């Protein structure tokens, strides 16, 4: 199933339901409200005419202002309020239109939400969902472009997901809201909102928790572990390399950054001997580092070549397009890195794709921010 689903972004012509990331989010939000009267959604702008980039549009009208409401600008306070609301029976969904602003709520998230269960000997639970959006393109700049998965995933007690498809959203969010009993941080990517994904029917059948990693492409030449929009980039690179270079990439969508499927990763690297990690954030102390740890602690001898990691350049994000284009790894870079890793030489002679990464998507994006 995962394999088919994975092709959606690149091949939306397949004959099953096609759902955008935004629609999936909207469905997850609407269903949550409809299923359980204890669910509330709040955040700046959830009830306005843009509706959190469409993901909460009209829900205040449908379910009432008591359940879907705007808030003052008060990230720390509102996160504390979410915790208190959860402790007294509500299921709060808090939204942030940029993950950068969540730094204001780090104390409540890390010192309180992550600890509330353990610190009191298991006598409390704080089931709640915090949604936040990564920005990119159109001059988002240093303060509207960060993705802090590693800051959260470092802290025991938190569950961190980064959906890379509509399927992941429709599998994970209902599970998180309906069955998971702790605080979850969902990091969404703004540039995926408009993308179409093919939905797999078995979504509902999944037994066990969807809060783990998933193999989205099988291959024996190299293992690519990726997060969020980098999963799509990796899929594009993989399609290209399969077509023009006969290289078969295996792609693992990390999906649940705090609880990756270690054995999936270790098994894959054991088979391919080559590992590339592609993340939406900086490499140092990030996902790239953590995946290396997993492999190093288990079987470093499986690695037949140095690991390659791709992420944002080690700097704040510049706004000028000319610099921003170089700030993120593009499809050429990624394809070249994979080809070099697999062939063992940078004179691999494999033709690189023309576009810079998902350039059409990135260029088309002009807000709303």
């Amino acid at each position: 199933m995962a394999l088919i689903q994975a092709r959606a972004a690149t091949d939306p012509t397949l004959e099953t339901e096609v759902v955008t990331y935004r629609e999936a989010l909207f469905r997850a939000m609407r269903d949550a409200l409809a299923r359980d009267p204890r669910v509330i959604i709040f955040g700046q702008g959830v009830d306005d005419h843009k509706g959190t980039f469409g993901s909460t549009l009209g829900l205040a009208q449908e379910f009432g202002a008591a359940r879907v409401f705007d808030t003052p600008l008060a990230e720390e306070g509102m996160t504390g309020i979410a915790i208190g609301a959860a402790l007294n029976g509500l299921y709060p969904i808090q939204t942030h239109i940029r993950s950068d602003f969540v730094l204001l709520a780090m104390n409540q998230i890390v010192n309180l939400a992550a600890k509330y269960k353990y610190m009191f000997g298991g006598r409390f639970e704080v089931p709640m969902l915090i949604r936040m959006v990564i920005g990119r393109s159109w001059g988002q700049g240093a303060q509207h472009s960060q993705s802090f998965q590693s800051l959260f995933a470092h802290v025991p007690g938190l569950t961190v997901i980064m959906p890379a498809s509509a399927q992941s959203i429709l599998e994970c969010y209902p599970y998180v809201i309906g069955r998971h009993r702790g605080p979850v941080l969902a990091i969404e990517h703004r540039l995926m909102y408009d993308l179409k994904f093919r939905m797999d029917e078995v979504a509902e059948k999944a037994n066990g928790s969807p809060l783990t990693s998933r193999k989205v492409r099988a291959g024996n030449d190299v293992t690519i572990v990726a997060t969020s929009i980098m999963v799509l980039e990796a899929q594009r690179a993989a399609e290209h390399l399969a077509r023009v270079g006969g290289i078969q990439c295996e792609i693992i969508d990390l999906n649940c950054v705090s609880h990756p499927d270690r054995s999936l990763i270790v098994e894959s690297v054991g088979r391919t001997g080559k590992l590339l990690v592609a993340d939406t954030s900086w490499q140092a102390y990030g996902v790239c580092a953590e995946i290396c740890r997993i492999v190093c602690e288990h079987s470093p001898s499986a690695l037949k070549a140095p690991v390659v990691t791709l992420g944002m350049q080690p700097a704040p994000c510049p706004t000028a397009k000319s610099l921003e284009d170089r700030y993120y790894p593009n499809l050429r870079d990624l394809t070249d890195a994979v080809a070099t890793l697999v062939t063992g030489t940078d004179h691999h002679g494999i033709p690189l794709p023309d576009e810079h990464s998902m350039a059409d998507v990135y260029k088309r994006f002009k807000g709303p921010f």
Partner: protein
Amino acid sequence: MKFPGIYEELFYKALRIRLVEERIIELYPSDKIQSPVHLSIGQEAVAVGACQSLKQTDLLFCSYRSHAFYLAKGGHLREMFAELYGKATGCGHGKAGSMHLAAPEVGLMGSSAVVASTIPHAVGAALAAERLKKPQVIVAVFGDGATEEGAYHESLNFAALHKLPIVLLCENNGLAVHSKLEARQAYRITDQAKSYGLPVAYLADGHDVVKVHEVFSGIVGEVRRSRCPHFVEIRTCRYKEHVGPDEDSHAGYRSVEELQAWKSKDPLILNQELVAQYRPVILQEIDDAVEFAERSPWPERSELLSDVV
């Protein structure tokens, strides 16, 4: 227990807290309580007066200085001592210590060692009470220092904006660790609270337990009826050092006279007759609780990694 009147009942409850704290002081040198303790001695009447009119279903959130509120709200004494001892039978199964007492069964919903951090929790619980139509009153307890934190401002604004059934209770002991109010605040706490449109009450004498109870019960009644937030500031005095079992009035950061002035008004010191009357039964209860703690087992090794997610 039966009491001839409300004064005696409140006195008894305050004395019980004082004697518990004094037992902790006695025990502390034994190193059996390996936990930083922020004692409530001097502030008992605030907790007792405030909790008297609360129901078990009313929820209270407080700070690391929570021994008094834990007991006043109805937390079990045995589980408190066991928690201080780090035992499996403690109210937090040995994971909480003195700074994180909780007793959800009686509505003590948690205490946190990060200043001001439970104020928004109380507001959120009040939001839930309002949305889920629970007839609860929620209480947030915090020190004067907590009012300096940004989250305090955010909490007051939200509580007032959404008209939530909450009492915001500031225990103003004039100190944050060793800092005086004047070194920290350009505002008067109640005046600042008024600016959010909150009805405020100010009590200058936190030793007057009956007065505290009367004022608080009026306010709790009002909140229960109107479902609107109220603010109360009560002046009080911590007798001991900020954290730990000792006196530190010699250290020079506060005036010994002021401390003496508070002590000279303290019913638990003045009314030795009542003390003599209630002390024995309370000590018995404390003995029992300490023995319970002593006898109790340590947490299992498996507890280390349980209840994480």
